[in-house]
């Protein structure tokens, strides 16, 4: 069969900048930081005492209390963001074939918050096992995809994708392939992650992965700045409705952008450190361009992985310069993690939404918190420092990389019928 074109027709987001796509984009466009001191647990003895948490988030504002308490937060945010996307895409369940609608969802860790609480209760007790029958359903990583299908009655392909901080991007790529090759007509995709708890902050701290700028949380996430000292944890979810062009047109859907290509590679180098020359990152962007049938000069914006770690930011820029050559100087590069923090397994979803919105609005969101140039980075590159820049974005590429050496990139293009 001929490959089918894949388009994006619905968006949903719960982010540290706001609990809807509009609030999220408003925050990005205005360079707002979502960082603050941690409220979810007592972090007073931790090396890092801040994160980008969701604001005023209460799952029972969106669903029955009975449903909410059966879900770990990562599933609550998945369900809420996907509800927003399904509504945004104006899907009429009675006029589509639900057997051809799937859910492919990314998450890095799963239901860690509830799991840790139950373990704590058990080990503080006298050894009597009193585990909740919902312990396992709250924990397992696939359950978000399961809930989304149950809620909507979508009976097509249904699974979760795990590649640490590249999870949501890998999910989006899998969704694209399913539609491109006729395995489904429409897929709810994206990712969610809510793991701001003692074990995960403590674990990332032990790896020396997090910024420890406790005296000034809002400027802690500073990708490409000379004084960056690690990433800032974020939490939340992003959801995208992707479908075949014919399917979207047949039901008269509004099309936000076309999903034209993706790539996935491994560094095969180290558990947590990126390849110093950005080898896997170089290969994944090359692969995504090839998959999309595009040339380097056709990309106007790269939403980078750019987590604000000393090694990662440099390796990614090296890779961009190897792939894009002279074209790298004409594009905008930005790390929206400077504002949202790092949403880990959900990063690829909310950053895909940022890329799509940049195409729609002709505006590239900034890399905020730039104070001092890093001499390791080419000053002729445009990192969109501190303030959003208006420009036509014909196509945008989004990179995500995960611990384990996973790399995934997707390319969205302005939709032209």
């Amino acid at each position, binding site marked *: 069969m001929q490959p089918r074109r894949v388009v994006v027709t619905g968006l949903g987001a719960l982010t540290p900048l706001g609990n809807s796509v509009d609030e999220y984009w408003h925050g990005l466009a205005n360079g707002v930081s979502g960082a603050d001191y941690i409220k979810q647990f007592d972090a007073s003895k931790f090396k890092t005492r801040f994160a980008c948490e969701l604001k005023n988030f209460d799952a029972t504002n969106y669903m*029955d*209390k*009975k449903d909410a*308490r059966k879900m770990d937060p990562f599933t609550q945010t998945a369900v809420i963001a996907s509800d927003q996307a399904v509504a945004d895409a104006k899907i009429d369940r009675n006029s589509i074939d639900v057997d051809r609608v799937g859910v492919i969802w990314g998450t890095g860790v799963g239901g860690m918050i509830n799991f840790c609480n139950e373990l704590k209760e058990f080990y503080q007790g006298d050894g*009597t096992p*009193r*585990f*909740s*029958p*919902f312990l396992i*359903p709250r924990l397992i990583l696939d359950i978000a995809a399961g809930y989304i299908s149950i809620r909507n009655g979508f009976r097509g392909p249904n699974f979760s994708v795990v590649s640490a901080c590249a999870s949501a991007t890998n999910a989006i790529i899998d969704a694209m392939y399913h539609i491109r090759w006729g395995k489904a007509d429409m897929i709810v995709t994206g990712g969610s992650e809510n793991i701001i708890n003692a074990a995960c902050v403590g674990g990332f701290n032990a790896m020396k992965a997090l910024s420890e700028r406790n005296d000034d949380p809002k400027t802690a996430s500073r990708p490409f700045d000379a004084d960056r000292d690690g990433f800032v944890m974020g939490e939340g979810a992003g959801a995208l409705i992707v479908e075949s062009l014919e399917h979207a047109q047949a039901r008269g859907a509004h099309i936000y952008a076309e999903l034209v290509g993706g790539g996935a590679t491994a560094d095969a180098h180290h558990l947590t450190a990126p390849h110093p020359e950005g080898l896997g990152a170089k290969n994944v962007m090359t692969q995504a361009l090839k998959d999309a049938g595009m040339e380097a000069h056709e990309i106007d914006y790269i939403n980078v992985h750019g987590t604000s770690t000393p090694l990662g930011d440099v390796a990614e820029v090296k890779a961009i310069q190897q792939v894009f050559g002279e074209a790298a100087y004409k594009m905008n590069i930005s790390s929206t993690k400077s504002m949202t923090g790092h949403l880990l397994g959900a990063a690829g979803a909310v950053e895909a939404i940022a890329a799509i919105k940049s195409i729609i609005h002709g505006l590239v969101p900034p890399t905020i918190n730039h104070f001092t140039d890093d001499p390791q980075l080419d000053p002729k590159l445009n990192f969109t420092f501190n303030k959003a820049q208006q420009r036509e974005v014909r196509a945008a590429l989004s990179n995500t990389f995960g611990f384990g050496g996973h790399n995934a990139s997707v390319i969205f293009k302005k939709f032209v019928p």
Partner: protein
Amino acid sequence: MSDIASRVKKIIIDKLGVDEAEVNPEASFTNDLGADSLDTVELIMEFEKEFNISIPDEQAETITTVGQAVAYLEEHVK
């Protein structure tokens, strides 16, 4: 209402998300209060925690209504 009955009622309202008025002695967890098999297991577990007792599985299977739960607990809680 006994102290045990009011504590049982509170757990049921919280876990099953039902209105207080629905939680009458005859109400069946599954037929009237919308519980599925996992919810029922969780309710028993919550009773065990609240009253610090252990309810054997074969006993737990016979507790299917609000009234049966209260009666069992009134008999077994010291």
